[in-house]
């Protein structure tokens, strides 16, 4: 593992050189330089390429040695076999970190593996942090540093740090999450681990552990670089921040695919699953769950106990969520009498009110019924979390949705509120209105229950 101060030279460099920077808008050497400049990184940026004297308005240097100022981070976007010839210059320039975007290493076969080992050993001997090779880069939005070959035009700042043995979270998938019309997730860091010849998931955990801008950690792994050390560290990190782990290669076929993707070693998934549970990490089993969990954890506080209060506009959803909660470690608590009295005000006298509380007969009554019932449930001492199931149909549309939810959240800021919302155009409108309030909205009760259960589980396990 590397030291924290060294990791800082990667995430918070004072100056960056891009070896292989290009003016050709179809090349990775153009993308990454352009991305760094586009997001207004504040340090010095030096393009290095003997074929240009200037790129993007910046002076271009024929080699690292020609740069007069100091260089903290060097990004290589040149063919794999050429990289070693630049490494001695890195030592001369006292470079602290290297990011290798180039591919053609361990993932390509034995020759590439040898080259990777050679570069890895050189960096270790000279105390240079190496990220990659075969990494698509990283983002540290705390420093406006977007060192990736993917553009983020819709970047949304938030409390999540994510790293993976993949480029999709520094690229396409992240862009998708940030391009949603609403319920976008905000990130602070994203990083592609690549082949992990140097920097690996342990270093990432260690760095984000003490990072005040990060509240939630997400990892996508196909294997562990050093599982023993990973879990020993994760156990400590999770006391302060939840770690959501999506682990590929659960089956023999998955492992075979992972081996050709990242050279993952065989790992008994029963063993992995046991250790994830022992140490209180949160496991996601697919990418949908991965981001469902991220939404819950980054939007709302964890419930202090298992007691859920459900209010519903829909009978079928009421039955389903009652089953789902029964199967989970959560429980349906009986509401306090004063809460039930509030519900009753809006309903015919013959209707029996339990938990889940079915207030469907008041569906079209608009804001008052929702707000008063939600406030009552959120302030009910028998309840540790509230799930509200609402139906967003045109004839139940009403004004003041944003203000209503704002009031509800403010009335009980330490109690989580989840929303299950079903509908078409009206749902989209409602979602736009509550954008930014950090209420996690799920399309089905099952997904909401799963996330809330994971948050309750984390609350119990975090201090162990």
């Amino acid at each position: 593992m590397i030291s924290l101060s060294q990791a800082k030279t990667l995430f918070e460099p004072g100056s960056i050189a891009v070896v292989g920077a290009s003016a050709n808008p179809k090349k990775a050497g153009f993308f990454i330089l352009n991305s760094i400049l586009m997001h207004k990184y504040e340090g010095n940026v030096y393009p290095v390429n003997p074929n240009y004297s200037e790129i993007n308005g910046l002076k271009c240097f024929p080699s690292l040695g020609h740069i007069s100022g100091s260089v903290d981070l060097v990004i290589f976007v040149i063919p794999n076999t050429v990289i070693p010839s630049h490494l001695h210059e890195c030592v001369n320039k006292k470079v602290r970190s290297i990011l290798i975007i180039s591919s053609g290493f361990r993932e390509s076969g034995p020759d590439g593996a040898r080259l990777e080992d050679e570069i890895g050993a050189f960096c270790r001997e000279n105390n240079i942090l190496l990220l990659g090779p075969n990494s698509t880069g990283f983002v540290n939005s705390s420093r406006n540093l977007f060192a990736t070959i993917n553009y983020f035009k819709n970047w949304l700042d938030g409390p999540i740090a994510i790293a993976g043995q993949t480029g999709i979270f520094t690229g396409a998938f992240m862009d998708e999450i940030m391009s949603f019309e609403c319920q976008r997730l905000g990130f602070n860091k994203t990083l592609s681990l690549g082949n992990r010849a140097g920097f690996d998931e342990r270093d990432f955990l260690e760095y984000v552990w003490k990072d005040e801008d990060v509240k939630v950690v997400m990892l996508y792994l196909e294997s562990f670089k050093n599982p023993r050390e990973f879990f020993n560290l994760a156990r400590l990190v999770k006391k302060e921040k939840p770690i959501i782990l999506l682990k590929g290669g659960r089956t023999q076929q998955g492992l075979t695919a992972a081996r050709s993707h990242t050279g993952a070693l065989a790992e008994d998934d029963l063993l992995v699953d046991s250790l994830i549970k022992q140490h209180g990490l949160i496991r996601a089993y697919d990418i949908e769950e991965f981001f469902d969990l991220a939404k819950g954890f980054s939007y709302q506080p964890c419930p202090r106990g298992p007691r859920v209060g459900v209010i519903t506009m829909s009978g079928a959803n009421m039955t389903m969520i009652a089953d789902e909660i029964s199967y989970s470690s959560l429980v349906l608590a009986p509401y306090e009498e004063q809460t039930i009295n509030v519900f009753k005000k809006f309903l015919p006298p013959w209707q029996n009110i339990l938990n889940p509380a079915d207030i469907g007969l008041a569906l079209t009554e608009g804001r008052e019924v929702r707000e008063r019932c939600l406030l009552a449930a959120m302030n009910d001492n028998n309840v540790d979390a509230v799930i509200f199931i609402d139906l967003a149909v045109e004839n139940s549309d009403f004004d003041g949705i944003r203000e209503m939810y704002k009031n509800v959240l403010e009335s009980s800021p330490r109690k989580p509120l989840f929303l299950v919302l079903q509908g078409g155009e009206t749902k989209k409108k409602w979602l736009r209105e509550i954008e930014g309030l950090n209420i996690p909205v799920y399309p089905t009760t099952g997904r909401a229950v799963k996330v809330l259960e994971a948050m309750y589980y984390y609350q119990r396990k975090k201090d162990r």
Partner: protein
Amino acid sequence: MSTYDIQNAKRIIAAVRSQGRRNLNEAESKDVLRCFGIHVNKFILIGPGQGPGKALKELNFPVVIKILSADIIHKSDLGFVRTNLCNEQSVRRELDEMKRLAEHLQINNVQGYVLQEHINGIELIAGAINDERFGPCVMIGMGGIHVEVYRDVRFAQAPIDEYVADEMLKSLKGRAILEGARSKTRPNSKKIKQVLLRLSDLILTLTDVREVDINPLIVNESDATAVDARITLR
């Protein structure tokens, strides 16, 4: 840890090593477990040419008879475990049959036969592994068909404490069985947890051990007993 007989466990392992072996036979494995306070069922060794008469005087029926050979991994699959033998006559018959079978299958390294008391209870499996990448871990699972078909097992990194041992048991799909469902007696889960804690100490102390496999660990109201065991060295 002070109550463990670590010296003796190390002596047993050294003796196996000196014979160029890496697999401890059942008797050696159980002796090591005993050094770590893990309860094993009463067993008596008889040599390859010996009869069972003397041994049977010290055991209560029903008894089990097994071959003793570090070379055979799946004894019962090959027919080298005979259970529920209720009298001397059937013991002699099964022993003779097993000897003929060993000859027929040309099993060279037969160190003898083990006679032991049959124990009633729920079958679990327990173990420990010192994995190159994951380090020392302990394991518990529902035995018999559950482990093979459902793989209902749970691991934990050693060292473990009582809380983790408890969590391991409660996370098994077969936990209802351990809590006494469909049975008049309640299996002694405290003793199961004790086995796990002791396995954790064992795998951390005996660094030459690569794997400990207790299959079955039989648990009833009074105890958790290692009925068969195999230890493999690095």
